[in-house]
């Protein structure tokens, strides 16, 4: 019977204090009755090995004790779906991009690795860990509190069918946004052309800026992509739905644009600068700093471009081949 006592002792540990003895007395009586019945059937005292299956059938001590406890949850089924959406959005649109950016910078930026040698590289993730911990902790805490007060505040049951949001078709492109994009692209293009932006030398407010010989190439490439953008806007104006063709077209334009800007940022864009009152040395310093800054920022262009491309690819997969 030592095995039964050990089992009951283990169950007792998990039970509520004021019911421990009562529950254990009843359970003990049941188990001992089962053992007695079996002993009477086989005609001898049960060994520990024979008692073991009876106890196993009763269930693990924690599971047996758990059935006597009230069902409890930190966040109940009424609020859990909202909690789950918020946590998933937090991870998908905040914590994961942050981690990807950190990985991108760590892999592609030698300057960043040089500034954070060894363990300092992982220490640079500290804000990310803090953001994870705080956001998960406070979201859980807020929802646990709301869950406890939701019956009183009528958070879930007080609702109106006509106040529900309209069903949004994610494949529909709003004409308003298309017209806005079209206006911005056309206005920018017109301004650039009017300013003769394909030149390499600019005189602005008494300052002469000489840009890299790659600038005109960039400029004309940008004109091409802008014209492609205008073409896409015209297409979506005539058929304001994403199709596999228009979505792929969007992906192509975005990849091309970000690649173009990445190339420009890494091309020592500013060649020279001169202005009255500015010494040659100061101007050279400024040019060097500016080019260093654009070169080190190029990684961000790449990261943002990758994110945009990710969403573009998702859109292509969503619309499917039949659209």
């Amino acid at each position, binding site marked *: 019977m030592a095995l039964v006592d050990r089992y009951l002792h283990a169950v007792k540990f998990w039970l509520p204090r004021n019911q421990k003895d009562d*529950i254990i*007395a*009843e359970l003990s*009586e*049941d188990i*001992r009755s*089962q053992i007695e019945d079996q002993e009477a059937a086989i005609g001898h005292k049960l060994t520990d090995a024979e008692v073991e299956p009876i106890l196993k059938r009763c269930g693990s001590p924690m*599971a047996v004790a758990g*059935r006597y406890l009230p069902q409890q949850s930190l966040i109940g089924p009424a609020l859990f779906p909202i909690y789950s959406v918020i946590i998933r959005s937090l991870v998908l649109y905040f914590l994961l991009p942050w981690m990807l950016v950190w990985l991108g910078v760590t892999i592609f930026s030698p300057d960043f690795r040089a500034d954070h040698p060894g363990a300092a590289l992982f220490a640079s993730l500290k804000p990310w860990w803090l953001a994870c911990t705080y956001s998960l902790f406070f979201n859980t805490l807020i929802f646990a509190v709301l869950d406890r007060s939701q019956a009183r505040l009528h958070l879930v049951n007080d609702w109106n069918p006509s106040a529900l949001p309209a069903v949004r078709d994610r494949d529909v492109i709003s004409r308003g946004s298309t017209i806005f994009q079209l206006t911005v692209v056309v206005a920018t293009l017109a301004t650039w052309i009017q300013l003769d932006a394909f030149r390499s030398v600019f005189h602005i407010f008494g300052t002469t800026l000489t840009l890299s010989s790659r600038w005109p190439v960039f400029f004309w490439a940008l004109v091409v992509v802008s014209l492609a953008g205008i073409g896409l806007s015209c297409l979506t104006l005539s058929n304001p739905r994403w199709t596999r063709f228009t979505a792929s077209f969007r992906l192509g334009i975005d990849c091309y644009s970000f690649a173009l800007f990445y190339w420009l940022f890494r091309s020592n864009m500013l060649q020279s600068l001169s202005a009255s009152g500015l010494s040659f040395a100061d101007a050279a310093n400024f040019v060097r700093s500016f080019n260093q800054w654009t070169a080190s920022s190029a990684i961000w262009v790449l990261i943002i471009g990758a994110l945009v491309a990710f969403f573009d690819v998702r859109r292509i997969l969503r619309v499917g081949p039949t659209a």
Partner: protein
Amino acid sequence: MYAIHYMSPSTSTDTQNDDRFENLRQELRRGSLPLAVLAALRTEHYGYTLRKTLADHGMAIDEGTLYPLLRRLETQGLLVSQWREEDKRNKRFYRLSPDGKLILKQLLIEWKSIHESLEDIF
């Protein structure tokens, strides 16, 4: 026919179906247990004999389910219990309270109505 079925190798679909059936069967029986327990306790029983009575009637229930259920029904005032010595051992005897008798009567009417509705649907 039985032998052929028994010897055929079980596939993952069979196992899945078995699991699904078992889950639904348990869910169905779980809903009927309070009624079975209340009905059985029209006569006084202690836990072990109650389990045996239910098992004899095809409603086998394990101790881990029965005792918490008895406790819940007693908390709701549907059962009354009393510790008494029998065969030199202390046992807790349960029986229906007056409220329990009333609720049992109502539940039986409801059960019959559900049964008739299901028969209609089948």
